[in-house]
């Protein structure tokens, strides 16, 4: 029977059907649903965890793979930066049980800090990488990746992109393999990385990869279509761009090379493709990886083929490809019909993403803003929903770099601009993932900063995942609930105050108290995300009392409040009853709906 599956679900089922024993990762768009699906579809025989971060996940999986278990690790592309340390060494040490590391890239970027390309990471770490063009392929490739991993005793990367991860398709699934028993860890010097071992393994890997490239030349998803066409112009592509190219080409018969394993590059097949061509246009997202490989091959084999793409300025260098963007290039390259020019549209309201109505972060940011009124202060932010605190009118995020950087950036600022107050905002999940070492650094080095932990009791941005502070694991089991104030105190932060962000007066007082204590101080705002709590009774504006001053709109930027005529109005379907607006209103015109109706 066909199932309607998201790419990420297909990847998860691929791993389950390949007999995976252990799956772990850290949430990150567009990868999150993979691990959630493994947990949901688990027959009870798979160990699944949200690890505290990507480095921990990769190391947990490495241990299990040493013992012979099949392991799956999931993360988004920037997560691989965090896991780079174990990855680089593990590439030398290798594994016993198959290990597939799924790293989701995000062309656009749609929900990420960077447009980095994991295919480079594959080359850098010398690991094989699979690049699926569709959810169906991703499902098949997970199984192929496990087999390859065990055959060569190496971790293998699978790199889907957003449109594969979040594309859904009606698809047929194969038969699950039984999970084989785990052999167990066998002591051997090969598991201990030492310079002499690294030297030997480096040679071994360099000798292996060209062989692997030849083997992959015969891989069923590395393909050449229209092999016998006499045209002198070819197209090379990979990943989701293959789908765009297929669609843009229509019935046109052009020699088409699809690269499903960008590293090690299938050289033999590439040479077969290049044979007889004068020109090649390369369509790929993020970096010109296939393009450079082809340029290299032409140089190596002295082929007179012009390779065009991003490097030659023919294809856009950043952002997503689309059927239209490919059509526009093919119009010039092959004389195919130009894409239709879209109609010119009238001015439309812009909709930048905003904090939800009832979001506790709004209260926290507003309290800090009020407490620091008239004082010179810098607000270092971090990755999560609360990055949206930078939007007007809150305007409370001055920097955002990478996971955990708020704590440390604030320290750097504080060391060089005394007299300015420095705040660091961090969410609960980010705090556990990579905030702790920054706090230790601040305490040890005597920094003068105030840390604000926005504890909404979930990993909100990626869709409410558990973490060490929620008291539950991904497998639904109760877990010790780590106390953030307790951790901060244990790390040596002397002034730690907790506050409820929707009690404005007390929240402001708490911030002032922490801000006025020298050294490292902290405010922990505790209030759950609206996605994990029930709404309070909605509020309404009493039209007779409202003077139309717009203070609620100007100061809070709540999506539930707008101006109806000259008075403020609250959209009941959006209001969560947080009552922050009622506390901001200077004439007390906002109250519980029933009283004011």
């Amino acid at each position, binding site marked *: 029977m066909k199932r309607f599956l998201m790419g990420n679900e297909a990847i998860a089922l691929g791993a389950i059907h390949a007999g995976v024993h252990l799956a772990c990762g850290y949430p990150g768009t567009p990868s999150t649903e993979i691990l959630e699906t493994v947990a949901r579809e688990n027959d009870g025989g798979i160990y699944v965890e949200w690890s505290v971060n990507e480095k921990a996940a990769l190391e947990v999986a490495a241990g299990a793979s040493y013992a012979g278990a099949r392991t799956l690790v999931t993360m988004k592309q920037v997560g691989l930066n965090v896991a780079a340390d174990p990855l680089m060494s593990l590439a030398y040490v290798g594994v016993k049980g198959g290990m597939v590391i799924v790293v989701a890239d995000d062309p656009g970027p749609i929900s990420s800090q960077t447009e980095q390309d994991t295919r480079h990471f594959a080359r850098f770490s010398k690991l094989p990488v699979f690049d699926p063009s569709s959810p169906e392929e991703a499902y098949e490739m997970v199984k192929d990746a496990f087999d390859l991993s065990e055959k060569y005793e190496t971790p293998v990367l699978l790199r889907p992109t957003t449109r594969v991860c*979040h594309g859904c398709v009606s698809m047929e699934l194969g038969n699950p393999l039984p999970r084989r028993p785990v052999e167990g860890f066998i002591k051997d010097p090969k598991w201990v990385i030492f310079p002499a071992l690294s030297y030997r393994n480096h040679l071994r890997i360099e000798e292996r990869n060209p062989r692997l490239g030849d083997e992959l030349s015969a891989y069923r998803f590395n393909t050449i279509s229209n092999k016998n066409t006499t045209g002198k112009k070819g197209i090379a592509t990979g990943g989701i761009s293959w789908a765009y190219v297929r*669609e843009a080409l229509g019935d046109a018969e052009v020699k088409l090379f699809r690269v499903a394993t960008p590293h090690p590059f299938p050289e033999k097949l590439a040479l077969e493709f290049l044979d007889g061509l004068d020109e090649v246009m390369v369509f790929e997202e993020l970096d010109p990886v296939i393009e450079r490989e082809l340029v290299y091959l032409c140089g190596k084999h002295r082929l007179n083929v012009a390779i065009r793409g991003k490097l030659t300025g023919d294809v856009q260098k950043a952002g997503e490809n689309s*059927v239209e963007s490919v059509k526009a290039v093919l119009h010039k390259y092959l004389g195919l019909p130009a*894409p239709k020019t879209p109609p010119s*549209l*009238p001015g439309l*309201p812009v*909709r930048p993403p905003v904090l939800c109505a009832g979001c506790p972060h709004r209260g926290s940011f507003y309290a800090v803003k009020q407490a620091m009124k008239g004082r010179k202060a810098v607000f270092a932010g971090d990755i999560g929903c609360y990055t949206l605190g930078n939007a007007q009118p809150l305007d409370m995020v001055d920097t955002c770099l990478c996971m955990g950087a708020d704590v440390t950036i604030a320290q750097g600022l504080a060391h060089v601009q005394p007299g300015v107050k420095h705040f660091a905002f961090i969410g609960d999940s980010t705090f556990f993932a990579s905030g702790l070492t920054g706090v230790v650094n601040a305490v040890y080095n005597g920094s003068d900063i105030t840390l604000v932990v926005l504890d909404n009791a979930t990993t909100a941005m990626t869709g409410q995942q558990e973490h060490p502070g929620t008291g539950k694991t991904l497998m639904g089991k109760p877990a010790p609930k780590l106390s953030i104030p307790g951790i901060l105190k244990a790390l040596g932060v002397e002034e730690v105050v907790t506050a409820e962000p929707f009690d404005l007066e007390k929240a402001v007082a708490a911030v002032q108290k922490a801000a006025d204590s020298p050294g490292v101080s902290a405010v922990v705002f505790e209030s759950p995300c609206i996605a994990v709590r029930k709404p309070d009774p909605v509020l309404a504006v009493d039209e007779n009392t409202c003077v139309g001053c717009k203070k609620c*709109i100007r100061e809070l930027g709540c999506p539930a409040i*707008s101006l109806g005529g000259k008075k403020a109005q609250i959209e009941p379907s959006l209001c969560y009853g947080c009552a922050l607006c009622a506390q901001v209103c200077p004439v007390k015109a906002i109250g519980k709906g029933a009283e004011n109706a």
Partner: protein
Amino acid sequence: MSSIILAGVGGQGTVLASKLIAQAAMNRGQSVRTAETIGMAQRGGCVVSHVRIGAEIFSPMVPKGGADVLIGFEPAEAVRSLGYLREDGVVVVSSKAVKPVTASLTGSDYDGSQALAYLKENVNKLIVVDAGKIAASCGSVKVLNTALLGAAAASGLLGLTIGDLENAVRERVNARFVEMNLKALAAGKLAAGAE
């Protein structure tokens, strides 16, 4: 082969609506591909769901000028996605505007009427329904999505009948909300017929 675009604002239920269409098409033995906006943009930003039905489809995204039906969950979002519509395609749009926070802040007067006027001027086959009101009368503003699906099915261009969508609702919607969604489908269909 048919392509459908669902355009709205994060939180309006475009993702469930696209799943219902997909399920209904699958039940008819058709192949389906969809693409969704998931992530940061969901927080009150513009969201577009792409649904493509048929065997010879590669891209999950509808090409510009390739949509048979554009379902606008909000007037300005329908206009924003108009480039996806094929020349003789149909637009089904909810007349209720969702005001962006920025509009309230800058004092912009966006209330949807400007966008509706633009649609009336530029779209031959336009069905405007007061989906917000229909949904509320069915018991919850949350069923705005199924009300719009009912109206879209009534246009005949979805390639699906109300019966197909009803079955999909029974399969994919939480049992507690099935009745409400079925009511919204029927009310949406009725409203489109009255247009």
